[in-house]
């Protein structure tokens, strides 16, 4: 029998048609979910604050180390001491805007069964994660943006080569980087459906990711072979590329080809995500939710 559709006041109105995809519905959903996500992050403002402070510490360490390596007058891989300051300050912002924490949360979600309520809603669970993520980023920016400015001022960052056009070009690069990193790390998070302990894998990923994305050092500092390996991986396209465009180190046609590489990686990651997701749900519903 098909679903009843009664219209009396007390009876059941026909449910909205969920079978057809609607941008309007999705927009409304995001508005609602985003409001809830913001509310949650505001409720946890203390812990958000601590996270922001934590994410400032790593760039400070990097800046101190690389300033020492470069010395007051020398350069390493084309970077002077004050260019390193700018690079790591921008990378801090890029990292904040692109990272996700879900691979640490999925293990718990699967183990405690808190994933089930998300599967009961007529919307893909990834949308909640996207919304939570963006909300956290927005709240965190309140701390990260001033921190970036303070870092550049305090350590005398070199802003030469940064012009409005380059900064504008960095925006699509940043969005592309965020989308790509979100997809990669969401797929990684899905490994929790097969593994009961994901911490080791996550830590391994984080080291490789930070290294190849340019989090420890700009790629031009690496030996050519390592730099080439990095460039063939998706990771620098999530972060270093964005910083390089913003700083004016990547210019003109290289920016366009960089967008292209990002697009290719995003397409590949999207395919992988769909594949892994469908298996993950099957797996979840096979072993017991």
């Amino acid at each position, binding site marked *: 029998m098909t*679903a009843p559709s009664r219209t009396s006041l007390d*009876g059941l109105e026909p*449910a*909205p048609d969920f079978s057809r995809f609607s941008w309007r519905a999705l927009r409304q959903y995001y508005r609602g979910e985003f409001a*809830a996500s913001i509310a*949650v992050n505001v409720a946890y403002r203390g812990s958000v604050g601590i996270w922001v402070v934590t994410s400032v510490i790593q760039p400070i360490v990097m800046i101190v180390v690389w300033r020492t390596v470069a010395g007051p007058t020398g350069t390493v891989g084309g970077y002077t001491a004050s260019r390193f300051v700018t690079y790591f300050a921008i990378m801090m912002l890029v990292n904040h805007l692109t990272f996700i924490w879900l691979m640490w949360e999925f293990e718990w979600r699967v183990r405690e069964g808190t994933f089930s309520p998300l599967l009961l*809603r*007529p919307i893909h669970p990834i949308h909640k994660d996207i919304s939570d993520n963006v909300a956290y980023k927005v709240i965190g920016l309140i701390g990260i943006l001033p921190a970036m400015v303070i870092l550049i001022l305090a350590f005398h960052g070199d802003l030469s080569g940064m012009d409005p056009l380059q900064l504008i070009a960095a925006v699509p690069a940043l969005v592309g980087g965020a989308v790509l990193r979100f997809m990669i790390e969401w797929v990684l998070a899905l490994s929790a459906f097969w593994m009961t302990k994901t911490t080791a894998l996550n830590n391994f990923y984080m080291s490789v990711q930070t290294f190849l994305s340019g989090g420890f050092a700009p790629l031009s500092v690496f030996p050519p072979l390592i730099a080439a390996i990095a460039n063939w991986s998706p990771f620098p396209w999530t972060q270093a590329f964005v910083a390089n465009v913003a700083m004016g180190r990547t210019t003109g046609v290289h920016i366009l080809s960089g967008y292209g590489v990002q697009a290719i990686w995003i397409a590949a990651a999207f395919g992988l995500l769909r594949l892994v997701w469908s298996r993950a749900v099957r797996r979840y519903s*096979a072993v017991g*939710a």
Partner: protein
Amino acid sequence: MSGAAVEVEQLRKTYVVPERDAGIKAAMTSLVRRRTRSVAAVQEISFAVQSGEVVGFLGPNGAGKTTTLKMLSGLLHPTSGRAEVFGFTPWRRDRDYLGRMALIMGQRSQLQWDIPVVDSYRLNKAVFQISDADFAARLDELTDLLELSDLLRKPARNLSLGERMKCEFAGSLLHRPQVLFLDEPTIGLDVAMQRRIRSFVAEYNRRTGAVVMLTSHYMADVEALCKRVIVIHHGTLLFDGPLAELVRTVAPDKTITVQLSEGNTASRADLAALLGGSVAEAPVEETDTGWRVKVPAADTPAVAARLLTGLPVADVTIEDEPIEAVIEKVFAVTAQELVQASAQIPSAQISSAQISSAQIPSGQTQGQP
């Protein structure tokens, strides 16, 4: 299709669970050679539920009730078999189906922990695409019915268990699900709150005609809500029918208690003589103020009449066996029956699943290199 709202055919769910003995040696062995065991949680059950019905699932812990509800709500893929709810196959998790369904689990919260309840509801409004007008009207109605007005502005984590459960119900019903799966909805709640939730579910069913399927360990839930019950034990369906019939089949006796007006002077022999016939062997129990006699339901009027005329009766009560006792009997009887059956009938005629479910821990051990 037969027109039922919920149709389940030969639904089966087997879990594969890793298994090892205790101790370090076994732990090391399991690194190389992983042993798994398949555990049959639900074994080929079939039933159909019509629109507007409230059906109770009865069974002890581990009987397969929750597994069945999870399959029907799309959280679990069955190992084999078929189920359709309003024409949807639940585990395909069609958005259209999820938008008409709700699963409420007494032990699991679907509210956002850290934000005011009403914010969670607004989120549900967005998720289920509820119009502003519908949302306002339904929230008002639910707030009235469940007395939520003081709770809406509190974060879910600050609510007591009973308060949270009320809010959970309201949140899950905002989208007016046409089918409602309740898994132990009253667990841990005090008696008043249980009654509250019960009457609310009955009211929702009455108003909307939604299908309600519920599991509960509290027989009061089932008695109050479900005309029809499905009894599952070890994943097998044992009984499907009206609650009254289950009681009649398993516990066909009624208990007549008479309170005598002037002390208890009648002897056991007097009573046997008074009752006479086949009822003479009925279990008779002496109480402080009179007698308690257990008789087959059909004989109840006659026996009561004789007691009333033959003894100086001040008060009389006639009761069914308490439903808890009935259920206990169902499980005891069936386990015994299965064992007897397995002893008498050539084993080929009984499915190995049934035997193992009755006696041996279900499932078989398989080695997997």
